[in-house]
């Protein structure tokens, strides 16, 4: 595209990536595609007890399934929820994509999604999503995980992070208004969410959207609490906002009262030296 002054600019489209796909695909291309797809498969590994249960054709009996996505949500869960001795690690979901490399000093499991189950009440399952799940893997992840869980009587809560820059409102947001929570729920969800509903034209994407889509079409009661924060890394103030989401789950999940959040926060790795 040429501008008024005759400069030629490359045009970027919001909607489509490539002009034309090459239609002539030979056997080699197909093979490469197949191998890439195999490499991007989501793998679920359960402990022996759960795998035995699943292999005998049963599903995980679960009444509450809590998913934490994003820095703040995952750290909130590890600090306030699964930090007590009352939780067992029951499985992992690992996957490979370009942005999901194993960080030095972490085991493969730590950089995956970890499933925890309450010892006293095994029908409470928590999943901590510690890795980036690519757009093409979201649907598969959701299908595979939910295929292991008994949908009847299931109630899903998703805690998710987002930047306040992604939140649109006609009023000007002053810096004191963040962090705040917004909710979205499926039509099978009964009751009142603990925070205001996400206003149009705001949307959610990523794993929370994939879970919402799945649960909406399968009539599973689900609520997503999306926290909009103005801090890039994990911070204690943002984590506190998730506490309100647990007011309804108070009987099944006890939050650790004296969680020392500060000890847990490390400086985030600097990805680029542009803005040091």
């Amino acid at each position, binding site marked *: *595209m040429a501008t008024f002054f005759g400069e030629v600019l490359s*045009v*970027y*489209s*919001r*909607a*489509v*990536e*490539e*002009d*034309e*796909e090459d239609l002539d695909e030979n056997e080699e291309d197909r093979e490469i*595609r197949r191998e890439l*797809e195999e490499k991007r498969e989501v793998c679920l590994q359960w402990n022996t007890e759960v795998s035995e249960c699943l292999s005998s054709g049963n599903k995980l009996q679960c009444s509450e399934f809590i998913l934490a996505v994003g820095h703040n949500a995952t750290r909130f869960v590890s600090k306030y929820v699964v930090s007590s001795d009352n939780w067992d690690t029951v499985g992992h979901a690992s996957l490979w994509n370009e942005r999901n490399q194993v960080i030095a000093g972490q085991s493969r499991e730590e950089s995956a999604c970890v499933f925890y189950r309450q010892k006293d009440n095994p029908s409470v399952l928590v999943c901590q999503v510690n890795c980036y799940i690519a*757009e*093409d893997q*979201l*649907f*598969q992840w*959701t*299908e595979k995980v939910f295929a292991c869980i008994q949908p009847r009587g299931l109630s899903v809560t998703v805690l998710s992070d987002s930047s306040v820059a992604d*939140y*649109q*409102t*006609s*009023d*000007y*947001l002053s810096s004191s208004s963040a962090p705040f929570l917004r909710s*979205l*729920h*499926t*039509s099978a969800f009964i009751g009142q969410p603990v925070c205001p*509903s*996400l*206003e*149009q*034209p*705001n*949307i*959610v*994407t*990523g794993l*929370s*959207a*994939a879970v*919402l*889509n*799945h649960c*909406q*079409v399968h*009539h599973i009661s689900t609520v*997503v609490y999306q926290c909009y924060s103005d801090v890039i890394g994990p911070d204690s103030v943002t984590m506190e906002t998730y506490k309100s989401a647990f007011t309804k789950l108070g009987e099944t999940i006890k939050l650790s009262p004296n969680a020392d959040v500060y000890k847990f926060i490390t400086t985030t790795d600097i990805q680029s030296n542009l803005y040091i």
Partner: protein
Amino acid sequence: MFVPSPQCSPSFRAFTLVMPAVAVGNVGQLAVDLIVSTLNMRRVGFLHTDCLIPMAGNNPYSSDKEDADELHTNAEVYTAEDLKLAVLQIRAPVIQAKSKKFCQLLVSWIKSCGFSRTVVLSSSHAYHRDDQQLRSSPLRYLVTPSMLKLSKDALEELGWSEMERVSAFPGLTEANAEPRLYIPGGGITKGLYTDSCAEDIPLAVLLLFCSEGDNVPDAFALVDHLNSWLHLLDSPGLEATKWKSPPSWSLLFGSGIPPALF
């Protein structure tokens, strides 16, 4: 995979399907938004597929507080029974490696539902036009052979221009080389059209040459163009209606500005 809404068992036999192709400027999707919002259409189901990037939001067409908290997903089907009209809205991009699969899925769904005809609203990069296309109207159409049998007279009467086929590499290939269909920036439009030709599905593509930017005027142009054929707003009770933009179109250019600026 089509999943009907609870307490809904829609039958699409003899319905007309209007759907967008996710294409440059999102013109087709905006036009479909206008149709759903103006005709107050009812959601009857979802298209639940791994070919689209997941997204969710609250009701984009809500008129009052009561129906605002309704979850909407990346691909949904709406109907207006009295007009025998069904609309598929797609709200997310197609995952690139899965565009072929998505075309096949759509074609088999269209076939199984028994739609009488399908109209795809699409767009193409304006800067790819040749000299002849630059001089004429920016609207084009394409029809499959079985659609041509159905609507030959109507199309002749409308006097629309058909999308030109161009030579693959002008000047480089021989002049008598077979010209091909070329829809840059049209997403799945071409794939869907060729698959429908092969499957003998009555399908028409209406497309508009445009550039990225504020594509709301383009959406109005395309939906008006469609209306001159399908007469959606001419039915009783709707004659004087104008297209109604949905509330979700607000804040297209971002949030409010800080009051301290003034």
